[in-house]
């Protein structure tokens, strides 16, 4: 007799914990042929609210860490994904059965995290500078993280798309509330399990699975979200995000502006601070 396997429950990732949705709802994740492979938690507006609260609480101390430290933590995430390589491949294959393509997606995801990890203690050396102002003043500009960033993850590239958007946001010291790919939620949940065991502090990343149409308006209107990466949003959803952003002047980054790996994505989620100081006796 063959052994009965033990199946995983796919939950949300909020504040370092794995709750089900407070709404008690879930929705089916389908494979490429439309069969139900798992039920994943369907987050509510209250789950989103909790996620933002945790992201806010975690932000100052995440930003206060050294770039070196953040870089090492991201690198650790890459190590842990590599360690679960086959799990990720099989989950990508649920919706995209081509094994070679799935393997490429996972290796690219790992290398992309390593690439961003390296930026943690370097991007300020690219965007920061000494400004040669006239007069006896020391004047430097340096980037600082924007704050809490909402990420509407790309819908098709469930792992690579997510990690490349997420890494760019985290590397400078932002914290994130992610709305995972609605149709391909499984790799995002497994990524959450990796994050929870990779020295990423609780609350720095929060991952919600659910219906994007339901969650996006709450994210777009939230007064304590500072920026939104709309990479995975539909044109209508983008419009909704841009309209909601007005309430507290959120920065909105649209998909396709910079590609999967670019220091300019990091820059998009930073604020430049310029400091003047006199030089004299």
């Amino acid at each position, binding site marked *: 007799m063959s052994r009965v396997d033990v199946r995983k429950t796919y939950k949300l990732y909020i504040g370092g914990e794995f709750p089900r949705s407070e709404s008690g709802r879930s929705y089916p994740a389908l494979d490429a042929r439309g069969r139900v492979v798992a039920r994943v938690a369907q987050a509510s507006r209250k789950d989103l609210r909790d996620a933002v609260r945790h992201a806010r609480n975690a932000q100052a101390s995440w930003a206060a860490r050294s770039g070196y430290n953040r*870089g090492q933590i991201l690198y650790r995430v890459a190590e842990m994904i590599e360690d679960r390589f086959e799990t990720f491949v099989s989950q990508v294959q649920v919706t995209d059965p081509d094994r070679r393509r799935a393997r490429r997606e996972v290796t690219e995801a790992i290398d992309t995290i390593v690439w961003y990890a*390296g*930026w943690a203690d370097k991007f300020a050396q*690219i965007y920061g500078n000494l400004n040669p102002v006239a007069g006896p003043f020391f004047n430097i500009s340096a980037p600082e993280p924007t704050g809490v960033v909402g990420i509407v993850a790309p819908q098709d590239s469930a792992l690579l798309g997510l990690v490349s958007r997420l890494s760019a946001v985290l590397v400078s010291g932002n914290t994130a509330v992610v709305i995972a790919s609605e149709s391909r939620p499984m790799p995002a949940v497994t990524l959450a399990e990796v994050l929870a065991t990779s020295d990423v502090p609780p609350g720095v990343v929060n991952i919600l699975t659910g219906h994007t149409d339901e969650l996006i308006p709450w994210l777009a209107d939230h007064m304590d979200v500072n920026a939104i990466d709309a990479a995975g949003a539909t044109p209508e959803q983008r419009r909704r995000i841009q309209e909601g952003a007005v309430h507290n002047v959120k920065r909105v980054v649209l998909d396709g502006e910079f590609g999967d790996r670019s220091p300019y994505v990091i820059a998009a989620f930073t604020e430049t601070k310029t400091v003047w100081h006199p*030089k004299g006796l």
Partner: protein
Amino acid sequence: MEPQTTENTEVASRKADVLAPRIEWEYVPSRESTDIVEIADRYDLFIGGEFRKPKSGKYFPTVDPATEETLAEVAEAGPDDVDAAVAAARAAFEDGWGRMPGSERAKYIFRIARMIQERSRELAVLETLDGGKPIKESRDVDLPQVAANFFYYAGWADKLEYAFPGFRPEPLGVAGQVIPWNFPLLMLAWKVAPALATGNTVVLKPAETTPLTALVFAEITAEAGLPPGVFNVVTGAGETGAAVVGHPDVDKVAFTGSTEVGKLIQSQVAGTRKRLTLELGGKAAHVIFDDAPIDQAIEGVVNGIFFNQGHVCCAGSRLFVQENIHDLFVDKLKARLATLRVGDPLDKNTDVGAINSRQQLEKIRQLVEAGVEEGAEIYQPQCELPDRGYWFVPTLFTGVSQSHRIAQEEIFGPVLSIMSFRTPAEAVEKANNTPYGLSAGVWTSKGSRILWMADRMKAGVVWANTYNKFDPASPFGGYKESGFGREGGRHGLLNYVKHAGGRP
């Protein structure tokens, strides 16, 4: 607190007591175990990914300066060995290291960084055994910085296109690197990490008194799967170094050491197409204004000159104190000196370890004698030194003039020359009155004065209200006879790349 004069002589005598706390009660030696390190009897050269016997057949001893006992014998690389190492490095460069995608190179270097972290205690103990520096420093400063440098430059390997606008970087080829004995593994990291990240291959010549950690590092590169020949170690003394520098197939020479040797190397390289960076001696000015956070300034000065027994090219060896606080400052400094613990470098409580070699000890003694002869006033706290090994008591000189040898020459030991100044302009003038220009320190509570001073100090690094701070992200290097080129940070990459197809 304001210095207060008092008529009460009893108070004055108590003051002497309180300023020199006794510390006998608790720090009985707490020796770091050496079990973690296995030292072989004999070490060969690391060429083409394997350890090879020297063609010369010659070996030389490396000594624990704290006990004068021989730790191991190390191969002496002759011209043929250097030739083989350069050939291996050239082959590895041509075979693909130079053309490998940066992201792949990065992963090797990240691996190396991780393996250094994993073996950090072992490497720290070995560094202390071979070089004499306190375990507290090798454990808490050297090794964390070594790993951090590899992490930092690993991250640059696939981002070189962003480092310099308009510059299409290509590796130079084979880098010949000659490093000193004061921070053996850290200087290796400063040189090797950026060289590998930019796609160069390396022939490294460690100092003859401290070759062991470089050889363990070689082992690590092999375990990390670094392609053979990308990193090579040739051990030996000055002649081996000269053979590396003079080898016609070396594209880049990087040297850290004395200005004297640096000049020899500069002349040896003259007339070739080799790129050169030099990180040489220093005689840093450490300037204390009367509004400085005084107790922290004392710590800064102590750290500035007694860190690593003063074997630091950027050591704050000339102290300039504003005249109105000179006496108070010197009193506090003397009291603090009395609490320094000199002795067994493996004792976790040791602040000042062994002088690196007999030769260096002789040099320090000679310069200190010169200081006394020239009329400066010497102060050394009472301290018991071990019977064997090379030791020098932390030393202060007051009443020093700019014209004294101890104010001009690099002592490279735990010896501080103290002078006074009256105005900021005078402080700047005296601070810059030296052929060196590696580093400088300023202590004042006034930010604008820090920046005013920093603008005027002719030094590659200026520390304000701190001293001897290092970070992989921060460039380091000198003005004037302290050398040229910067190590660390984005700037550190520039020494190891050329623009594709000519001028940028």
